C-alpha cells in the first residue's frame, strides 16, 4: 500500500533527521480533495494519506524556505518532479536541500468531473485500485470510478508518469504510455483571427486578478513581482479586459522556458480560465523551433530560452 | 464632518516649499476655494490624504497647528512613489487634500499638565502640530512646562531647525533638547540616541504627559525608558503610522486587531496600545 510506504518512509526520514520536515498530502474537506500537510514530527506522520485526487503540486512550497539551512522532503508525482528539476536548475532551491519522495502515477482523478456523477461529499477513508477502476471509500459509502473517464485533462497527455528525479521512488516505475500532441493548442490555433480574439477576450474578461495562477506557479519565483509593483506600474490594478490581457500575456511570457506544464494555474483559477493553455502554446512553439523537451522533463537540458545554439531559427532577421 | 463624497479631494495649491533635510521638505498649501478652510477643521495630530492627480494619494500628518489659520503644512519624507513626485513639485502647483482624518492628541486631557515631547526623525512632524498648538499665545496658559526632546541621525537630518533652535527656545517655559546619533564635525550639541538622552535627562513623571513619535525602534526603547522612570500608561501618548488608503475606515488596510488606525487612531495612549495586538 502506497499510503503505508509513504508513512514508513517519512517516519524514517524524520527519525534519522534526514529532513527537517516533509510536505505531503493530508485528507481534505471531502473525498475529492486533499490538503497539503507539513509533517515535522513522527507523531504527525499518521496525517499523511495518498489519494487518487492528490493533484496539488507541492514543490512550490519550498520557496517559503529560501536561504534557510534546511532539508525538505517533498512528495512528488511525475508532473511535479519537473518543478523540482527547474527549481534546482534556476538555483532557486538547491538540490541537496530537497529530499524528493517520488510517486509513480497513472493519472489523477479530476474531482470536478467525478463530482458530476458521484457523491464525493463524504470524508476520504481510503481507496483501492481494481483493474481500470478506482474504488474510493468514503464515509458516505464506496464509489467505483472508471479511471480513464475521469482523469484531469493534463493526465491524458502525461509523458512522465514516473518522476524524472527522486531520492526514493515509492512503487514500481511506470514507463511513459501517453503522448502529448497539443490538441488543445492546435484546436485554438486553427480558429480564425476573430474567433481566437473572441475566445480569449471572453476568458480574460472573467479574470478577477486574484493572482492564484501566479502564486501556485513553481516557475514564479521573483522576490518582487511586477504585478505587485506600483512603480513602474507595468500592469494597472484595475480589472478590465485590457489590463487583464496584459496580465495574462506577461505572466505567460515571464515563465516561458521555465513553465513545466504542471497545469496548476488552470486548476486553481476560480473563474475557469484555461491559463495553462497560454503556457502550452509557448511550450509547443519552443519544441517546434528549438527541438527541446518540456522544461524540467530532462534534467540534462538547461534553460530553453537561456541558451543559444548557432542553428536556432531566426525568424526575426 | 461628513462630506458629500469623502473620497473626493479638495484642490489646493502649494504656496511654499521649505527644504528641511536632504530627504524631507515641508509644503505649505492653501485650498483654492477659501471656504474649504471653514469645513476642514483639523485638530492637532490628525492626518490628511494628499493627492497628486494622475499619480495617487499618500497619507501625511498635518504638521501645522490649527492655530495657524488659512494654510496647512505637511512635512514629507521622500520614501516612495508619491513622495518622490511631490518632492519635485514647486509653489503654484496643484495637489488634492482630503481629510482631516483620525483622532487627535488629547489636548483637553493635557490641560494643566507639563508636556514632554519626544521625537525622532520625521516623527517630529505630527508632534509639531501639538507643540505649536500649546505654544500659541491663546493656549499657552492652559499648559505647564513644555519640553521637547528631538533627535536625528545627523545635524543635516534635523527637521524644523528654525523651530528647534530659534522659535521654540524663545517661548516661555520651554526647553528644547536636541541630539544626533553620531558625533560630527561642527556639532557641539548632544550626541547619542534619543532613548539614552531621555534617561540622561530623566524627567520627573509628576503631573507630566509625554507625547512620542519616531521610528518604531526608537518608540520601543523610549516606551521602555518611560516605564522605567515611573510614567504610567496613561501618561504616555504616541501616534502610529500605518499604510492607509481610504482614510475613512473602509479599505481594510490599517487595522490593528479590530481598530482602524485611520479612524480610531493614529493617536493612542500606551494603555490603549498595550490592549492592541502587536501588529504595527
Amino acid at each position, binding site marked *: 500500500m502506497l499510503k503505508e510506504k509513504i508513512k514508513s518512509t517519512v517516519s524514517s526520514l524524520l527519525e534519522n533527521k534526514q529532513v527537517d520536515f516533509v510536505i505531503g498530502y493530508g485528507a481534505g474537506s471531502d473525498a475529492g480533495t486533499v490538503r497539503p500537510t507539513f509533517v515535522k514530527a513522527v507523531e504527525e506522520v499518521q496525517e499523511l494519506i495518498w489519494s487518487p485526487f492528490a493533484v496539488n503540486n507541492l514543490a512550490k512550497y519550498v520557496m517559503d524556505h529560501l536561504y534557510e539551512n534546511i532539508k525538505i522532503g517533498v512528495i512528488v508525482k511525475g508532473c511535479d518532479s519537473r518543478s523540482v528539476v527547474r527549481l534546482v536548475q534556476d538555483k532557486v532551491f538547491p538540490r541537496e536541500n530537497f529530499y524528493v519522495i517520488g510517486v509513480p502515477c497513472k493519472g489523477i482523478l479530476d474531482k470536478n468531473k467525478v463530482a458530476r456523477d458521484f457523491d464525493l461529499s463524504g470524508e476520504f477513508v481510503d481507496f483501492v485500485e481494481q483493474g481500470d477502476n478506482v474504488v474510493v471509500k468514503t464515509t458516505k459509502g464506496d464509489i467505483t470510478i472508471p479511471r480513464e473517464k475521469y482523469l484531469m485533462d493534463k493526465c491524458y497527455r502525461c509523458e512522465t508518469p514516473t518522476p524524472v528525479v527522486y531520492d526514493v521512488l515509492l512503487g514500481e516505475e511506470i514507463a511513459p504510455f501517453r503522448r502529448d500532441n497539443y490538441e488543445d493548442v492546435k484546436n485554438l490555433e486553427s480558429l480564425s*483571427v476573430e474567433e481566437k480574439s473572441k475566445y480569449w477576450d471572453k476568458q480574460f474578461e472573467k479574470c478577477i486578478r486574484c493572482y492564484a495562477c501566479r502564486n501556485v506557479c513553481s516557475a514564479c519565483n521573483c522576490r518582487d513581482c511586477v504585478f505587485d509593483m506600483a512603480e513602474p506600474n507595468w500592469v494597472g490594478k484595475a480589472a478590465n479586459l485590457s489590463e487583464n490581457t496584459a496580465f495574462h500575456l506577461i505572466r505567460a511570457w515571464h515563465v516561458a522556458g521555465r513553465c513545466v506544464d504542471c497545469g496548476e494555474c488552470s486548476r486553481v483559477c476560480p473563474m475557469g480560465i484555461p491559463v495553462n493553455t497560454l503556457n502550452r*502554446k509557448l511550450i509547443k512553439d519552443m519544441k517546434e523551433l528549438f527541438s527541446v523537451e518540456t522544461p524540467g522533463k530532462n534534467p540534462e537540458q538547461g534553460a530553453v530560452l537561456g541558451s543559444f545554439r548557432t542553428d536556432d531559427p*531566426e525568424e526575426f532577421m | 464632518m461628513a462630506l458629500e463624497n469623502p473620497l473626493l479631494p479638495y484642490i489646493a495649491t502649494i504656496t511654499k516649499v521649505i527644504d528641511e533635510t536632504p530627504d524631507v521638505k515641508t509644503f505649505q498649501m492653501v485650498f483654492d476655494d477659501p471656504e474649504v478652510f471653514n469645513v476642514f477643521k483639523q485638530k492637532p495630530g490628525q492626518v490628511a490624504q494628499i493627492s497628486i492627480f494622475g499619480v495617487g494619494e499618500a497619507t501625511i500628518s498635518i504638521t501645522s497647528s490649527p492655530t495657524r489659520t488659512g494654510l496647512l503644512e505637511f512635512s514629507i519624507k521622500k520614501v516612495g512613489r508619491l513622495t518622490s513626485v511631490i518632492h519635485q513639485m514647486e509653489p503654484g502647483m496643484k495637489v488634492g487634500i482630503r481629510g482631516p482624518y483620525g483622532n487627535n492628541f488629547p489636548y483637553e486631557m493635557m490641560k494643566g499638565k507639563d508636556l514632554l515631547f519626544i521625537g525622532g526623525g520625521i516623527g517630529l512632524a505630527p508632534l509639531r502640530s501639538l507643540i505649536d498648538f500649546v505654544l500659541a499665545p491663546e493656549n499657552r496658559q492652559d499648559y505647564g512646562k513644555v519640553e521637547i526632546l528631538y533627535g536625528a541621525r545627523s545635524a543635516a537630518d534635523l527637521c524644523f531647525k528654525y523651530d528647534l533652535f530659534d522659535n521654540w527656545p524663545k517661548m516661555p517655559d520651554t526647553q528644547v533638547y536636541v541630539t544626533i546619533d553620531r558625533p560630527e564635525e561642527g556639532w557641539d550639541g548632544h550626541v547619542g540616541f534619543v532613548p539614552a538622552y531621555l534617561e540622561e535627562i530623566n524627567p520627573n513623571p509628576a503631573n507630566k504627559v509625554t507625547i512620542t513619535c519616531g521610528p518604531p525602534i526608537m518608540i520601543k526603547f523610549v516606551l521602555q525608558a518611560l516605564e522605567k522612570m515611573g510614567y504610567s500608561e496613561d501618561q504616555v501618548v504616541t501616534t502610529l503610522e500605518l499604510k492607509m488608503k481610504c482614510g475613512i475606515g473602509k479599505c481594510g488596510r490599517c487595522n490593528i486587531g479590530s481598530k482602524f488606525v485611520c479612524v480610531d487612531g493614529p493617536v493612542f495612549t500606551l494603555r490603549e496600545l498595550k490592549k492592541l495586538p502587536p501588529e504595527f
Partner: protein
Amino acid sequence: MKRLFEFIGFEPGRFHARWISGSEAQKVVETAKKVTEEVRALGPNKKMRDDRC
C-alpha cells in the same frame, strides 16, 4: 512573442520583431516603412484598448 500575440487574436502583421544592427540604416528605413504599411492596412488596433476616460 509574435506567436502568442497571434494566438490570442492579434492580427498577423500587427507585431513585428527585427534584428537590425546599428550600421544597417537602410534596413531600419525599409523595416519602418514595411511595418507602417502593414499596420496601416490593418487599421486601428482594437485589442487591448483601454477606453477609460
